[in-house]
């Protein structure tokens, strides 16, 4: 199911924990949906010098958090902003289709933490994408019964 890279980042997650007096914090997800991701950033001279996370969620959520903190470290805010969920998933050597949303969470957590920093600095936040379905707990239900049409990318267990 999971790549070796995912399993490595799940078993030995990098950067777990909190940063005391962080410059930016972003929290996304919803415990109701089974995953919540909180990212802490330490920023100096527009550059991310440290990143940590705490995550409640599945293996992919933890691995995505771990990978995302690794990816942002050392990057300028502009560079970090451009890290897409695909980039996180690719760095993990792929995620199962039903787990791609975990990489989306990671991207969103980065964006939230950066904007948190910007707002604290008195800057206007950059435009975030509309949050995916995880933001509202009531929206985390996927259709449980098969649709009428076969093979249209239905969920794979």
């Amino acid at each position: 199911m999971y790549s070796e890279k995912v399993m490595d980042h799940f078993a030995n997650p990098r950067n777990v924990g909190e940063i005391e007096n962080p410059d930016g914090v972003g929290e996304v997800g919803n415990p109701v949906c089974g995953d919540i991701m909180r990212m802490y950033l330490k920023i100096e001279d527009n550059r991310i010098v440290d990143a940590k996370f705490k995550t409640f969620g599945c293996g992919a959520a933890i691995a995505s958090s771990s990978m995302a903190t690794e990816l942002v470290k050392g990057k300028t805010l502009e560079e970090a902003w451009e890290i897409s969920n695909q980039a996180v998933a690719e760095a993990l050597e792929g995620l199962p289709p039903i787990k791609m949303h975990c990489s989306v969470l990671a991207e969103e957590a980065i964006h939230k933490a950066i904007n948190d920093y910007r707002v604290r600095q008195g800057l206007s936040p950059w435009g975030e994408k509309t949050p995916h379905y995880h933001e509202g707990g009531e929206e985390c239900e996927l259709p449980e019964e098969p649709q009428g049409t076969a093979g249209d990318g239905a969920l794979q267990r």
Partner: protein
Amino acid sequence: MVLEPRVIYLDHAATTLTRSEVVEAMLPYFHDRFGNPSSIYRIARESRKVVESARESVARALGAEPGEIYFTSGGTESDNWAIKGVAIANRKKGDHIITSSIEHHAVLYPARYLEKQGFSVTFLPVDSTGLVDPGTLEDAITEKTTLISIMTANNEIGTIEPVREIGKIARDHGITFHTDAVQAVGHIPVSVKDDTIDLLSLSAHKFNGPKGVGVLYIRKGTRIDPLLHGGAQERNRRAGTENLAGIIGLSTALEIAMQSLFREMERQKKLRDRLIAGLLSSVPHSRLNGHPEKRLPGNVNISFEYVEGESILLSLDAHGICASTGSACTSGSLEPSHVLLAIGLPHEVAHGSLRLTLGEENTDEEIDTVLGIVPGIIERLRAMSPLYPGKEKECHV
């Protein structure tokens, strides 16, 4: 074949033995690698992997995509799912389906059940060789037609239907096309791509795989309701814990069958034609049922007038020969085979039919044995028959 030494098995259309190599391939998945493919731990992920590679292998054999292969419990479930699932899912669009009068009961009875639920069904006639006429089929199409189901090859008389033409007609009219290929897959080439087939049923035990496992191929984009609702297996379309060993058995058997497909077709055709010619020439008042050429390589179906099929089978059984008949008397109904009636046989002639279906393990010597035994059996039964006009009145056909 490890049957009793004297058994000559000529009922491969009913079922086949599961090949030793196939049993070998299945064995680890009962006790050692039994993990539920839907679970998450390693032994379960291994199960998932073998199911998916079985799916790929089946897809290759049919010219399909792996995501279009759904494992079922056999030909009957596949047929029921296709017929009822498509009809009901498309009910708003239309309530008419077309099939033939010589389909297997696993297609006919679901169609009749739908009639009771308010659908209208056209049961197309066939000609005297068992062929559906594509023109007649096209004429039967109405605005309300949502499904056409015509078998690839008939299980009783072996006639191979013009599936490619029918597939084209269905596609031209935007109608879903299902074919029951239970008797065809593993025996003659079948390609869902070339024949523009939308749904196809197959069953493992007809090509030396295990009983109780089959496939429904469903072309991507086809509207169909599930038949078995429940767990999320088979991409949410066919619930139920996967029959792991059965699925391995199915795919292994199909791989082996495909490897020697053309060689085995040629070999069986020779045996078949010798059997047909031998029986027709040595037994008067006999006729071949089905098409002389458009015919499964392993199918022989002959009617012997003035005798009844079950008594032929019992007599053959006494010689260790396993065969089948279209007579009602073996089935517990009183109506003989609907297929033999549909090709125009009078009831009493339909009752006297004998089906011999060949498989890989049949030999030239076995054919000789059968040819030596059958004429005597028929003669003995005719001597008992009040219908038999007697030797003197015979006119050889």
